[in-house]
């Protein structure tokens, strides 16, 4: 909910985020008096016009008696079909008018169909393709989560023994601790997931030479509730180039948008997976895909998510500035997340900002449930982490909610510490503070000869100090905060944070030299994946 003008324009990013990630959202914005609309009134903006490309639908209410119908429609539209944001703009005179409301029993939107269902024929065709395949992979996304289809997915995967990789939005749709899980794929996803989908290649001697295939990837890709995002596919024409692709989605406009596929099916994914699981149960598959599982096991053993304290870290400016004489006690960002995973037994709800820490959070925390990982994936909106954590904590007061954030992202919505304090919302934050915009810096290092474009966030004149001073800042908000510099202090500090019954910030100082690996550079293929430091 936002007031007119600037407050509504601040909601534009939220709508864009929800639109990209298909999040059901109702945004109610105040508008100036109807008589003042279009006259450049104080705090007037055409928020209806401004948000048109980033909403599923929107309304400007001109008659108070429309409110019950419009609000009902808005909630229905936001949550049904492919979910998305719906904006309601409410002029001040309508807000202050009085009426006897008549609440409609049902919504009737004559041109809106929310529940397409796959035909038996199409689903049988999928079963036929699986029976013919040797190396099937399920590639599933946020659609499984918004479609509440995790249970059906698991039944289907277990019955068919098809390995499952998810998108970032799909993290938690399938338990990442499950033997069939390939974790998530894409630019910074698991090497084994990328290999399983695309095949593994020998590194090309020269960039002009075509890469030679080392081990074949999927011959059948079941893409359910996904949209072939460029951060997943890399160069899209090479994505799963050798495989037959089945694309099942509730939204017809996703079909053949980014990637032409062999078998497109428009369906609610819960229905389709439920039917598929029942079909496989009634008539079990003959195939066991033994060779394929062996290959995947080899890949998993060879290239798990990992990190090490490299020479580069040891020799970095970070060490000279902050850890002189205690270099052995350096904390890598991945260590902090791994430790959090262990201490929370993988049960916490994790939110993130956007950048390196986001990728590491997804790599080193294994998600077991849908909606356990809350992140701004499509839009990549920095500052998302803490407000999202507050929301999650309000919704689930008995769950541990931790925002794994970066210093760049956290600072963008730091004022929410006041919300946490005033409203007594015990959402926790781990700031992986490397004094840089880490992901931008990683690209600067890899592609722009290490030139820094204002990506250093510390105080250039006092590099040895950490800037800004989060402990002092949090104190001013009345929120507890500790700074952790050395590895030996990390575990007890994390434990104190988790035990706290109030908002708590852990400012964990980490070296800026770490790069997120694996890394498939933008627009390239799996053959160009960098996965060893």
């Amino acid at each position, binding site marked *: 909910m936002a007031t007119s003008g600037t407050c509504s324009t601040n909601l534009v990013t939220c709508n864009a985020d929800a639109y990209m990630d298909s999040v059901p959202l109702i945004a109610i914005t105040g508008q100036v008096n109807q008589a003042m609309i279009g006259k450049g009134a104080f705090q007037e903006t055409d928020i209806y*016009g401004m948000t*048109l490309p980033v909403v599923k639908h929107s309304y400007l209410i001109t008659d108070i008696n429309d409110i019950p119908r419009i609000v009902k429609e808005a909630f229905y539209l936001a949550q049904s079909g492919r979910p998305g944001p719906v904006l309601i703009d409410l002029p001040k005179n309508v807000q202050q008018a009085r009426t006897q409301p008549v609440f409609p029993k049902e919504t009737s939107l004559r*041109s*809106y169909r929310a529940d397409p269902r796959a035909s038996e024929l199409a689903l049988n065709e999928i079963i036929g393709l699986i029976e013919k395949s040797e190396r099937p992979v399920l590639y599933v996304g946020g659609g499984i989560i918004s479609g509440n289809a995790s249970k059906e997915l698991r039944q289907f995967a277990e019955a068919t023994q098809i390995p499952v990789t998810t998108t970032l939005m799909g993290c938690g749709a399938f338990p990442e601790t499950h033997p069939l899980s390939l974790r998530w794929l894409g630019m910074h996803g698991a090497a084994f997931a990328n290999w399983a989908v695309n095949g593994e290649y020998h590194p090309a001697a020269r960039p002009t030479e075509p890469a030679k295939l080392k081990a074949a990837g999927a011959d059948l890709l079941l893409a359910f509730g996904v949209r072939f995002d460029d951060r997943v596919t890399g160069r899209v024409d090479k994505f799963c180039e050798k495989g037959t692709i089945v694309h099942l989605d509730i939204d017809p406009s996703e079909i053949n948008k980014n990637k032409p596929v062999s078998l497109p099916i428009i369906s609610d994914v819960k229905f389709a997976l439920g039917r598929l699981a029942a079909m496989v149960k009634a008539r079990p598959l003959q195939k066991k895909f033994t060779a394929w599982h062996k290959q995947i096991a080899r890949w998993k053993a060879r290239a798990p998510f990992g990190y090490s304290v490299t020479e580069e870290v040891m020799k970095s400016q970070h060490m000279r500035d902050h850890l002189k004489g205690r270099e052995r006690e350096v904390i890598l960002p991945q260590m902090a997340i791994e430790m959090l995973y262990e201490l929370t037994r993988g049960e916490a709800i994790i939110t993130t900002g956007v950048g390196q820490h986001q990728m590491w959070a997804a790599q080193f925390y294994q998600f077991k449930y849908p909606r356990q990982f809350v992140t701004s994936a499509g839009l990549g909106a920095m500052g998302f982490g803490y407000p999202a954590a507050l929301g999650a904590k309000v919704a689930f007061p008995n769950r541990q909610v931790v925002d794994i954030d970066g210093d760049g992202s956290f600072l963008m919505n730091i004022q929410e510490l006041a919300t946490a304090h005033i409203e007594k919302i015990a959402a926790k934050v781990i700031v992986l503070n490397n004094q840089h915009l880490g992901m931008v810096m990683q690209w600067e290092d890899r592609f722009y000869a290490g030139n820094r474009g204002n990506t250093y966030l510390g105080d250039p004149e006092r590099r040895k100090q950490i800037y800004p001073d989060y402990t002092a800042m949090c104190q001013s908000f009345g929120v507890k905060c500790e700074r952790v510099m050395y590895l030996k202090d990390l575990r007890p500090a994390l434990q104190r944070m988790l035990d706290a019954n109030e908002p708590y910030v852990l400012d964990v100082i980490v070296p800026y030299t770490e790069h997120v690996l694996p890394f498939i550079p933008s627009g390239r293929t799996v053959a160009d994946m960098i996965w060893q430091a």
Partner: protein
Amino acid sequence: MRHTISVLVENKFGVLTRVAGLFSGRGYNIDSLNVAPTNDPTASRMTIVTRGDDATVDQIVKQLSKLANVMQVQDFREGEYVDRELALIKVAVNSKTRAEVMQITDIFRAKIVDVQPKSLTIEATGDETKLEKLLELMNAFGILDLRRTGKLAMPRN
């Protein structure tokens, strides 16, 4: 490729902007656009002519269908529909050329709707090729003003 897209929408404010936005957001120009009520007073019909590669137009058509106020979208292929456009053409004439302009108008089964000492206004209806041809001929005399409705299209069956 040129596409003629017919969109049946609910008669509500903002619909035109939403539809047009799907084109502009992709950097696509609309060649012509016509909107008018249908026999159902709560619905309007838009006829949009645009150019673009088939995949992108296909994407636009799917996005159009998704809009909450859009009831039906048809992307017509060549030959599947009948189309007409109306044009008002103001042509410069003098005593020497007036007769010839009137003659051509007649051949094209168009009508003279206004006569002024130095101009004639012609009302012409037809498909695109016919109107283009007529305009080409009238260009020789000097077209002072031109108003076109944009294409209307209706499926044959």
